[in-house]
């Protein structure tokens, strides 16, 4: 089937605009990181790798980066089972007070991040767990949980109730049905959701700002705090390293599971 020309034009113009806005700041940051000057400018002032040298020799940054990875991992590991179960439940069953429940589960988005940060800081402080890494992971999980739940419900369109019934009729017990029929059907949602959870936790700064201290500071918080009197190109260089890491992760994921997985219908 070939699409009519007018349709292709409309789609491509709009996609082109989106691609431009998505990539423009990335290109600027990428370019600025190679400047030989002291401030971020575009096009860059000469070429140098000095800012990469500077961040490579910074032990504090490496520690912050490792902590961010830990936070993101904890967040994702919790989000996968919690979000998947909730998403399937919302998609599959008729639930009493469903509307109120949806509003409740959306609270992480309706509460401004500063409010969430202050609230969680008070709560974790009272529990005496402030100053550790794992509560930050949990916090990042809570504030982004709707993404995980919705990624799953969105792909629940592939969930065929008849197929589950068929499995049950053939004598498959409930847990087997869940693992062999239900879960594979929502797998695309689980994967895109967990990818999003990981990335967002890796970049979270506003809530983490209130939950970290100088010994547990994460990378985005460190970057946010460094933008004080002047924006230096090392921040751009960090972003570029971040993007490079992301590219590697995405490439790995593609090799392992295939990126198409969450776009293909079963």
């Amino acid at each position, binding site marked *: 089937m070939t699409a009519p020309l007018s349709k292709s034009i409309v789609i491509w113009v709009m996609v082109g605009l989106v691609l431009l806005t998505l990539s423009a700041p990335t290109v600027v940051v990428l370019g600025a990181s190679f400047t030989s000057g002291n401030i971020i400018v575009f096009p860059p002032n000469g070429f140098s790798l000095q800012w990469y040298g500077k961040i490579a020799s910074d032990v504090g940054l490496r520690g912050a980066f490792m902590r961010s990875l830990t936070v993101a991992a904890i967040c994702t590991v919790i989000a996968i089972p919690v979000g998947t179960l909730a998403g399937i439940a919302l998609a599959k069953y008729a639930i009493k007070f469903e509307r109120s429940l949806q509003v409740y589960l959306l609270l992480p988005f309706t509460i401004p991040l500063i409010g969430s940060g202050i609230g969680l800081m008070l709560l974790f402080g009272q529990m005496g767990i402030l100053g550790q890494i794992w509560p930050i992971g949990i916090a990042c999980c809570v504030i982004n949980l709707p993404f995980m739940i919705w990624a799953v419900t969105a792909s629940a369109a592939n969930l065929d109730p008849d197929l589950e019934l068929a499995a049950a009729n053939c004598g498959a017990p409930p847990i087997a049905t869940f693992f062999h029929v239900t879960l594979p059907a929502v797998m695309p949602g689980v994967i895109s959701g967990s990818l999003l959870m990981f990335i967002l936790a890796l970049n979270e700064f506003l809530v983490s700002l209130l939950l970290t201290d100088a010994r547990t500071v994460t990378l985005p918080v460190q970057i946010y705090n460094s933008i004080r*009197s*002047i924006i230096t190109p090392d921040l751009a260089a960090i972003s570029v390293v971040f993007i490079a890491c992301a590219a590697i992760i995405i490439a790995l994921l593609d090799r392992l599971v295939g990126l198409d997985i969450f776009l293909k219908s079963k």
Partner: protein
Amino acid sequence: MTKTKSTYALTRRRFLGSAAALGGLAATGWTGQAFAQEPEKPAEIIVRAWGGSWVASLQAGVSDPFTAATGIAVRHDLTEDNEIQPKVWAAVAQGRIPPIHINWDTTTNATKSALRGVTEDLSDLANLANTTELAKPVGLEGYPIVNTYGYVYVLAYRPSAFPEGAPTSLQVLLDPKFKGRIALYNDGIGFHFPAQVAGGGKLEDIPDNMDAAWSFIEKVKEQQPLLGEDPDFTNWFQNGEIDLAVTISTNAREAMKNGIELAWTVPEEGSKFETDGLWIPKGLPENELYWAKQYINFAISKDAQQVWLDGLGLPGVVPGLTPPEGLAGDPSYPTEPADFERLIRVPTAIQVEHESEWFGKFKAIMQG
């Protein structure tokens, strides 16, 4: 390779600096206690500081020599002063050990913490004896805070936009030529009092009658000013967005050092003079409190102040400091009583009480 070399050179210079500082410490009498009953040393203490040239100066002037002399590492927490405050307050309220040992803070913010009762008393620091009256917080009992230097909210400008020379009056902000090309702090800090004068009011009427300030600020609003924080100002000057800004001289100076075309002046209406200080939150273990106090004690020694404030380009609180290059006689570097005549000082107590009201009023005008 050159990188490593310069780092080495720096370390060496720092080492020499700290050796000198060590002498300074000995002179003040506390390394003499080394063999007496000295509380156990923590592995590190955490000092909240502002990033960029601020923390670099503190490190060179205070933190590194302190580490060299005591063996205690200093970690800098770069959380904003505004943003550390609720964290410290919550920690004290909940009986937790606070996240920092020392807060480098504006005197206004620190006064709020002192009024709330979350600060340790610092009256027993030996080096306080050698400081000027600037070190003492006004209107508070004892020394819940030790002021460490003063600074001025200058009028920074782009020289190429002023071929006839530096602007002399704040009225320049109303010049149609600069519509959309002026910048103020988000909450108007540093601008309320000069605006009172520029609007034809009297400083004595602060805080009871500030109509003059508000009417002037309303006129400035017509000029569509940009509002931001220090990094924004640097960015805007650099990208040619603005020609004028009311900002702290240190930031203007750092921007200049980075090659941005900039100069500053104190207008005839005067500029706001403020101080920053150091304080220690309550709730630290005894030994850590002791060493945190020693850090502050060292920070107000002449040696430490000389290096630290050279970096910041600001006047300190011990007599006899050598002004940094090019700043002797500069209006942003007041040392003599005559220098203070053009500067506006409003008691911290009044500021603390009315600040949120002023911020709110400023915001209401600017967001309208």
